[in-house]
């Protein structure tokens, strides 16, 4: 009981909203909130994954042929870039937990740069596709795939990598915001919830890419 009383007197530091008992409860709540949000993300992408699986079962030959037209090496390199960015994100969380703000900013910066690298590579990849006429849907003009309905493969490819790309951009925005806040000294080993939950978001973006790689580049 004494603990509870003590909690309520010291627990309300500046980061704790009045409706939480203490920082720990608030941290747990935020983290659970983020996990629930990630569940919605999984189902959001899930609609497209479902469409991919179903259309693949309808047009298997098309998917195999069209997949061959994508560059596996670039896909692999981009995967490695994202995995390393996940590592640096995890390291940033590690160092903020140890209250090392300098290294936190350093690794957040690394994550940002890797994310940007990913986007640049992706941008080059897309523009190369466009130059060959691999557009989504009706505008499709590529002649390298003979099987029918190849544009559906590219539609799904653009939709899924595009939606993923939007998530990467949002992540880059969040990481920028984290760096500014860390620089201002607003995070410490006492309070790093935003870093932690942005990290969760970032890793999910990584996981989604981990599945996009085999679906579009490998399974030919």
């Amino acid at each position, binding site marked *: 009981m004494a603990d509870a009383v003590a909690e309520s007197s010291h627990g309300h530091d500046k980061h704790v909203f009045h409706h939480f008992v*203490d920082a720990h409860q608030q941290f747990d709540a935020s983290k659970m909130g983020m996990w629930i949000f990630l569940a919605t993300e999984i189902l959001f992408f899930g*609609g497209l994954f479902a469409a991919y699986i179903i259309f693949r079962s309808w047009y298997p030959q098309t998917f195999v042929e069209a997949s061959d037209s994508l560059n596996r090496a670039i896909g692999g390199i981009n995967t490695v870039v994202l995995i390393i960015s996940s590592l640096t994100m995890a390291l940033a969380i590690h160092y903020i937990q140890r209250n090392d703000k300098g290294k936190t900013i350093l690794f957040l910066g690394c994550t940002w740069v890797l994310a940007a690298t990913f986007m640049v590579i992706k941008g080059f990849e897309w523009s190369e596709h466009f130059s060959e006429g691999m557009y989504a849907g*009706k505008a499709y003009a590529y002649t390298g795939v003979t099987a029918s309905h190849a544009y*559906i493969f590219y*539609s799904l490819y653009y939709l899924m990598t595009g939606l993923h790309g939007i998530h990467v951009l949002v992540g880059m925005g969040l990481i920028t915001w984290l760096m500014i806040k860390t620089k201002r000294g607003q995070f410490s080993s006492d309070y790093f919830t935003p870093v932690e939950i942005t990290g969760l978001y970032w890793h999910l973006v990584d996981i989604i890419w981990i599945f996009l790689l085999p679906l579009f580049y490998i399974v030919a």
Partner: protein
Amino acid sequence: METAAANRKTVTMKVRRYVMPEHSEKNYINQEKGLKSWLLTRDHKRIGLMYFMTSAVVFFVAGLLALTIRLELWTPAKTIIDAQTYNEIFTLHGTMMIFFFLVPAVPGILGNFLIPLQIGAKDVAFPRLNLLSYYLYLMGVIFTVVTILTHGVDTGWTFYAPYSIKSTAAVIPMTTGIFISGFSSILTGLNFIVTIHKLRAPGLTWGKFPLFVWGIYGTSIIQILATPVLAITLALVVMERVLHVGIFDPALGGDPVLYQHFFWFYSHPAVYIMIVPGFGIIADLIATFSHKRLFGYWFVAISTLAISFLGFLVWGHHMFVAGQSMVASIVFSLITFMIGIPTGIKIFNWLATMYKGSIRLKVPMLYALSFIFLFSIGGFTGVMLGALSVDVQLHATYYVVAHFHYVMFGGMVIALLGGIHFWWPKMFGKMYSETMARVSWFLIFVGFNVTFFPQFILGAKGMPRRYYNYLDQFQSLHQLSTVGSWILALGFFVMLGYLLHSLIKGEKAPANPWDARTLEWMTSAPPPTENFSYTPVVIHGPYEYQRPISEFQLGLINNDHHGGEEHEIEAPSGSPEMANA
């Protein structure tokens, strides 16, 4: 139910009784003044009232649209509007009612207002996110209304491809509005789940939740898991219109039936988003006004989750004649029938709760009992539509329209009205006229049945839905239905009158007018901004009317308090706050 908890760790707390004043001079309504204090509020109760205002306006407008539809159907050919306008009006009626009223109303109004109060918290877990949810909802409504005023949309609320892809109507702004309000729905659900998990008062274990909390919990799960699929589906429709991606458009090798799968993967569970919290309200009302423990608490609670879960696996019963495979139809039909079991369990347990009770037929109870009657009809006709061969006849006829309105209006809206009449004194600190409320209840009950019962007959005889012109043989039933809609509307105008009167001139409400036992009744009416002046401690279940009210007003003792009667109690360390203590 105690045995499950007994195995848990228990902790000892020092508690005493706290009696909050009946009326609080400074309450959440008047503590801060000015428009800005409302628009930027993070208080869950104020946000609840903002949802109340907005969804009432939506309901009013969409209701007027419904009256227009009914009036147009007075004659078999043109009565007042042309076919295109008629199609646009039923699309708007459906879209507004479903996405901007039925889905957000109960969680938005009652969920926001009550969940923190019922679990003894000061607010929801993420108050700023909660305000954002409201504004996203408002934006969605505005987007749609602007679409109405500038262009009509005539696709029906279901936006079936390829019609929604080919139509020249403003499908993109309309779906954008729904997309935005989908985010609102997701964030609301997320907020409630975290709140229920993390912010419960000491001692408030899952077995002591008022059933409304269970209802909101079930609804939140559906909101979180189903809404994103709708979002991606609508995004795909937009992509199909803009880029012709070929996912749903058959002319490009896509599959319009796949659209229906995706759409109903959300939209079937969505009807459970609408009805499940209604079940919770009804359980609360029946127990309170029977003054008796809820019969089969755990059966009622778990059936809520069972319905939420099974509700995800039955979407294909909207597609028995849509061109899906027979295997799928058969599996969907079988699972559909399984939902009947937990629903039946609820209805029978509510009845058993009344047995040997001490029943007061106050207005909220009248709504609860009419819910049982109307929702049963909705349920039985649902069994009819789940039966494969019969559905072939009834699919897309007025039978479905009637069934849907019995479930949604007879279920969700009646439950909401019951809930609003029940918690009105708590929300506004004012009583309403019991007599006028009875008159209004009677008009609504009669008007509803006169409007929608004839539609069962129309549908079975083959009258298709969404028809502007119809065969002469259906006219008399259509006219009966139209007359019913006027009685129904009259009921709502009476309600508007006495509720406004209550707000302005109503007599002050006591804190606990219905002699209930759950936490929200232990605070003043209306509650102060911080809800409770103490940390509530819960030791009994929500419907233990045989125990004195003093045992429901316990709170942790502050270190600055001396004197008064102190108790030491043991409580299971079920809640996170206890775990930290």
